[in-house]
Each structure stands twice: as structure tokens, then as C-alpha cells.
């Protein structure tokens, strides 16, 4: 019924972006995201598009993997494009019928909005989800938010929770499938009947799922205890995050690339 749900869509590979310290990737992504939102000019967008293309080439991820990541938002992109075209009235009118008026300014804005969304999604995929394992993401966030430990934010615990959640998603998916089959064998219905019948069908899945998850949590807590877990203090790592000099070099190169499109905002600014 429900199978192959994969968390994150890490694409195994060996590229500069794969090897780059995940903390750098998180920072770069943040910078890039802000930059894309600040762009208003077509030239900047175009430059930004080129930068993303360069990143894609750098990541050595096949085009079809990147396209896969856009697929879920194609509808949203079309929707945004159409709404913008129909509602924004700037510049010359190109076509007009009934109450609809299409302008060249509107089309330009629509293209920019859509492109912005497109760039955001693609850059997230390339910089984060496709080239970084979820575990490294958790490590990066733990490290970046590390200073918050001083004000007693349980950063380590949150990262541990995130990583355990990632570990258990496939297990829970399997479990849900198993419970659904068992209850369907007893006559439960999820996709036929009225709302009440269906809701009842879902109760018969959710209750066992919760009960077993609590049991799992209890077991896991004991198992972690037995393996001497006592929080983040004094803990070492198999894969510690290490900033290499080359990481820093790449950081500045990519940072520059992220800012490059922004420059056009001032260069082409109306004087």
C-alpha cells in the first residue's frame, strides 16, 4: 500500500558539493535564498540562473534527478505564473478581452516570480537535500546552533531527536502498512464508505501505531542507556565535522557567486 517513502532524497555521489562541510552548505543556502528574494531585475535573475546551473554541474547530479525535485511544484509554478499574468497590470497592454488584460510588465513579473521559485527549489535540492545526508544536516544544525547551548537550548538533544526520527521513518512506514493490512483483513475501510466509516478506519490504524511507537520509544531508551548514552557531553563522533582549508576556499568562491547577481541590482539601478 504505502511503500518506498524515502526521506530526503540524498543522491550518492562524489563531488565538491558532496564533500563540502555541511555547515558551509547551510550558510550558503541561507545567503543564496536571501539573495534570490532581493533580486528584482531580469539580468540578476539570469545571472542567478547561471550560478545555479554552475552549481548543478559542480554537483555532478544527473539532470533527471534535479527535474524530479521540481516535479512536485510544477503546478504551483504554473499557478503563480497565471495569477501574476492576470493580476499585474504594468506597461503596455498586449491583449485584452472581456475583463482580462494582459500586459508586458505583468508577463515579466510573472516570469520573474516563477523563476524565483524555481531557483529556490533547485538550489535547495543541489545544496542541501541531494548532496547532504540527513544525518550530516542534523550534525550541521547541531554545530551551527551550538552557541545556543549556553542559554540552555537543548541543541544536542534536538539533533539527536531529528536523527532518531530519520532512522525510524522507514520502520514506521512499514509498520503502518502492516497495520493497515491487518485491519483491512478484519473489514476496516479507509477508502470507501462515508466520512464516519473512514474516520473509524483510521482510528484502527492510528491507535495501534501510537501504542507501538510508545513501546518502541521505551525499548529504544533502554537500548540507548545500555549503550552508555548520556547526552552530548563528552561524546565523540565517527564522522566529526571538520572544516578543511579547501572548504573555506570554496566557501568564499560560492559566497561570491551568490552575491554576484545582487550586484546587478545596483549596476543597473536607475540613476
Amino acid at each position, binding site marked *: 500500500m504505502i511503500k518506498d517513502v524515502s526521506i530526503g532524497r540524498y543522491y550518492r555521489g562524489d563531488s565538491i558539493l558532496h564533500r563540502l562541510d555541511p555547515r558551509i552548505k547551510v550558510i550558503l543556502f541561507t545567503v543564496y535564498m536571501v539573495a534570490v528574494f532581493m533580486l528584482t531585475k531580469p539580468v540578476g535573475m539570469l545571472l542567478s540562473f547561471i550560478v545555479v546551473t554552475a552549481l548543478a554541474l559542480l554537483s555532478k547530479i544527473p539532470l533527471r534527478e534535479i527535474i524530479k525535485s521540481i516535479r512536485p511544484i510544477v503546478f504551483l509554478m504554473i499557478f503563480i505564473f497565471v495569477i501574476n499574468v492576470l493580476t499585474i497590470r504594468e506597461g503596455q497592454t498586449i491583449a485584452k478581452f472581456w475583463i482580462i488584460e494582459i500586459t508586458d510588465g505583468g508577463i515579466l513579473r510573472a516570469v520573474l516570480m516563477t523563476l524565483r521559485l524555481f531557483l529556490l527549489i533547485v538550489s535547495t535540492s543541489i545544496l542541501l537535500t541531494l548532496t547532504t*545526508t540527513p544525518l550530516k544536516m542534523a550534525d550541521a544544525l547541531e554545530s551551527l546552533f551550538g552557541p545556543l547551548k549556553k542559554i540552555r537550548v537543548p541543541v544536542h538533544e534536538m539533533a539527536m531527536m531529528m536523527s*532518531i526520527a530519520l532512522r525510524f521513518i522507514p520502520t514506521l512506514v512499514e509498520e503502518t502498512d502492516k497495520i493497515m493490512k491487518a485491519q*483491512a483483513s478484519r473489514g476496516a475501510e479507509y477508502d470507501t464508505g462515508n466520512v464516519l466509516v473512514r474516520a473509524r478506519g483510521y482510528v484502527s490504524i492510528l491507535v495501534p501505531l501510537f501504542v507501538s511507537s510508545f513501546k*518502541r520509544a521505551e525499548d529504544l531508551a533502554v537500548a540507548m542507556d*545500555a549503550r552508555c548514552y548520556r547526552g552530548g557531553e563528552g561524546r565523540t563522533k*565517527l564522522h566529526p565535522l571538520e572544516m578543511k582549508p579547501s572548504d573555506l576556499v570554496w566557501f568564499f568562491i560560492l559566497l561570491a557567486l551568490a552575491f554576484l547577481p545582487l550586484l546587478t541590482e545596483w549596476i543597473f539601478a536607475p540613476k
Partner: protein
Amino acid sequence: MSQDIDNPIKIPDTNEAVRGADIRFSYTRQDATPVQALTGVSLMIPKGGYVVLIGRNGSGKSTLAKLINVLEVPDEGTLAVLGLDTMSEENFWYIRSHCGMVFQNPDNQIVGTSVEEDVAFGPENLGIPTPEIRRRVDDALEYVGLPGLADRMPSSLSGGQKQKLAIAGVLAMMPQVLILDESTAMLDPISRNEFLDLVERLRLEKGITVIHITHDMSEAYRAGHVFVLEKGRIVMEGSPSDVFIRHEQMTKLGLDVPVFAGVVLELCRQLGISPRKEYLESRDAALDSVRSIFGSLTAGQTSLVKSEKPAEPKIEADLRDIVLQVKNLSYSYEERSPMTLMDISFSVKRGEVYSVIGHSGSGKTTLISHLNGLIRPQKGEVELLDPKSGTVWNTRKNADVKEMRRRIGLLFQYPEYQLFEETVRKDILFGPLKMGMDKEAAEKSLMDAIRLVGLDESYLDRSPFELSGGQKRRVAFAGVIAMDPEILVLDEPAAGLDPVGRRDVFRYIRELKNLGKTIILVSHNMDEAARISDRLLVLSEGRAICEASPDELFSSREKVMDIGLDLPESVKFLWELAPDFPGLDLSVYDVEQVAAELIRAAGGLSAVQDKHLAGETDAKGSRRGGRDD
């Protein structure tokens, strides 16, 4: 035993891994009276030893394991692990980091998102430097036989691999004591043996003390020493033969003896001789003891007796009796992935117990999911037939599936997870009402069902979640039986239960069969399947490689060897004796029957008793002679 708190811990030089004296422990729950888990346990386990703890569910075995690993501390009494008192605060870290535990459910003890991350979890907690962790992780994976899987997601491993991963995780912490808390309960026989061989290797090569909790009595023979627990105390201990020779007491405790020991004990009972401890020292000793009991008999005398066993009624493909038919069923989960099921055809007749046998991964669960339309066939057909009216339902038709689900009750492995209602009554009624039974009929069906599984009415208004594991299993069972299906499909119905629980399950199955139900049993336990089934279907890597009655299957040695089948323990035992007992019928599966068959093949009870008494004096004489050397 108390230590000065200010001193850093000194590691005592001792040969004892565990020493406990009068340990008492109770669990306190906020809303209930404390539950006495241990009521005075004293024990000693030597370093490098292998001990087994057996006992019914709730006898305190797991609690004892937790106390040894300082996950809990005793309320009263003393417990020292590796010579260190578990009660003093400063010792607990040392003890815990030197005792590893592997638990029952493989899924609930894996922390890491990848195999190597999980192995590293323990050493990371101990604060071991990165290069050293790397080395330990690689060594541990290599040792348990999982190299090359370091980057895999743990959820993609098989059950046996997951338990090996758990061992690797413990191994990377360089333990001195390894505690297995029913770690083999969820594994199939092949993975179980691999796992236990690995544990034995750890003990021999690394000198790790093994404390093994199990329900499987034959596993006890891997240990040098067995502790039997009952109601929080140790009621018996000694070598496996010390314990199993007292089989009457074991039975009273709700425990069992391994099949080969059972055969020898039963043989002695039927012959009216008292069993000796050395008969039970090992499986080979048991075989030898059978040979020596019948010692002076010659082959010539035995071959005169003809088998009295009635010939098995021939199974004919009478179409009028067929209730379920699977035709050329093939299935694969993904388009290009290997086939999970390949061209499987079989038919099940009314009133029979039809067993599907295979190791995990052979496609059993996928196959049974087809039977009531949970999975629709990609190729082939699944049909339910009503022999009386001649109606045929097919899982390809949506309209038929509902009717098929009503007529075919399906119970998956560990069915207790499917309980969800507030009361046992409501939960059992869920299925029958969903299937359109009227209230009155459903009530009646409910009462019949709980009677069958041995629960009384007082359970009906309790919450299913406050019941014990075994009771939950009964409720889940009752929930399907109450639907009054014609065919019951049971996937490993006895998995994870203690011996009494297992016996109970097979008792219900017999009763259901007597009520005229057709049973399709899925199992990897050959002994039980052989005992109860009319016919067996052997599944291997998605193919049906053999279909036969147990007698047909196990009477031909070549056939079984050909398909590489795991044999019932009783059959294996008889096979080894076959050269000494010409005319032996190999297709008996109950210890009583096996013993009776041996006597029959040896010329009947009186003949054997006479010969045995005559041979007794010789045997004694020669044995004494041997000991003096």
C-alpha cells in the same frame, strides 16, 4: 562489598563475572501496587562462561539482565558485576560500558541512520577518539560478517542482519559480558543458528561471558549452565542435563525440554526404566543412549515386525472439496526488482491444515497477502470456491474481495499490534460487525471465540492494552475467529510465545480444524508444522519447490536433501537412528510417537524390556570398567 566513595575505582581481580546474593527487586508504577519481579535471587556466573536463563514470561529473567547491566539497581541484596558492586554510584559506568546487551526486537535497538553510525553509537558515547572508533567499527562489522554494508540504511537489513548489527554495536564497546535478552526470538532457524554461532565464537575467541535469555529449550544446550527462573527466583540450576532430567518439574513450570531429550525421556517412561543424566548430556549422548537401551537387539529380529501405522489416505484432487485455488501467481514489488513470487499454484481442500513453509524472505507474507485480496495479483488468479453452490470469487474483482475477506480470516505475525479498541469485547466484535454480522450473532460468536482461546468473560470489559503479551495474542486470535471465517490464514501464530503459549496456540488450531475450518498455516518451525499439517507447501525464494504430506516429504531422505529443507528435530533424530533400526517409520513427529515407533521397530515393548534387562548388567559392567582407566 561497599567501596570508599572517594577512591577511584579499582578493578578487582576476580574470576566471577556476576555474583548476586538474595537480590530483590520490584517495579513501582505510579498508579498501581509494586510488581515483585525478583524475590530473592542468588547466582554466580564465572568469567568466560556461557549461561542460559529460562523461565516463563514474567519470571524475572529480563529484570535480572537489566540489573546486571545496571539499568536498574536491586532493592535488597547485593549484586556484583566483574567484581564491582552495582549499588555504588562510581562503579556503574565501568560496569555498563563493559556489559553489552542485545534485545529481542531488532528494530527497537538500532539508533543510527546507517549501519556504521549505529555501530559507532556506543564508542561515541564512551568518548573514544575518532580514528579509534573508525577502527573498531570496521573490525566489528568484519567480525560479525557485515562488511560492505557500512553505508546501508538499517531498515533495509533482514532480521538476522539487524541482530548481527546489534552485536557489532556491542562488540565495538569491547565488552566483557554479553547479555542476550531473547535476542533470537524473532529470527528464523537459519539466522538463529548463525547468530548463536557468532556468539559462541565471541566467547571462545574473546573470552566474553555470555548470559543468554531464551524460550527455546534446545538453545540451552549451548550453555554450560542453566538457570531456571520462576516467579522471581531461581528454582533450578545446573548443566542442561541436570535441568532437563527433571522434566516433570519443567513441565509443571510451564517449560519444555528439547525434542531429543524429550524422546529419550519418553522412551524411558514407556519402557519403564529410569532415565540417567548422561543420556541427556548432548544430542549425541541421547542418540547413543537410545542405541544402548536397545543395545543387544539385532537387526534380524526387528525386521519381522511390520508397520502398524495405517497408510495415509491418498489425497486426491477432488474438485468438489477445493475451497481455495491459487493459479500461476507471480508478483514483484517493483517493475525491475526480482520477483517476490514466481508462478505459484496450489489448491487447499476443505477442512485440512495446509502449511506454507519457508525461510524469511521466501515470499510467504506476500503470498498470504494475496489470499484475501490485500495484494491483487499481477499475474495469475486467486479464487475462493464454495463447493456447495459452485460460486467462485476472484480477488481481481473488487466486488468479490469483501466477501472473500469475510470468508477468509487472516492473522499476520505478532497480531497483538492490531488491537485498538477500549475493551476486549469491542475489539473482538470489530471484525464480525464490520463483516455485517448482526449484533446477536456477533455476541454469540464472541463468546465462542473467547472460550476457544481460553479467556473467560471477566476479560471482556478490560482494556486490551493492560493485558500481558500472551493474553493480547489470544484476544487478537479471538478477533479473527469471531468473524467465523471458513478459512483461517495464520502467519507464524506462535512466534515469540513461551512453551505453554505455543502449545496453546496449536491446541486452538486443532480445535478449529475439528470445527471444520480450513487452516492455512505459515511457519518456519518444521516440528510444529509437521505435527499439525495435512499437506505442506515449501516456498523458497518465491518459488513453490515442493508440495507433499509430511509423511511423503520426510520419508524420503533424497527428496528432502534435494530441496535443502530444514527437518523437524524428531525426524532428524530418527534418521540418525535409522541404520540401527531397520524398518523404522521416519514420519512421526511427536515425542510419544517417536518413542513408540522406536520400540515397535525394535520388536515391541515386551521384547525390548526383556532384552534391555538382560543387556543392563553387561552395560553397567563395561561402563564401570571404562571409568577405572
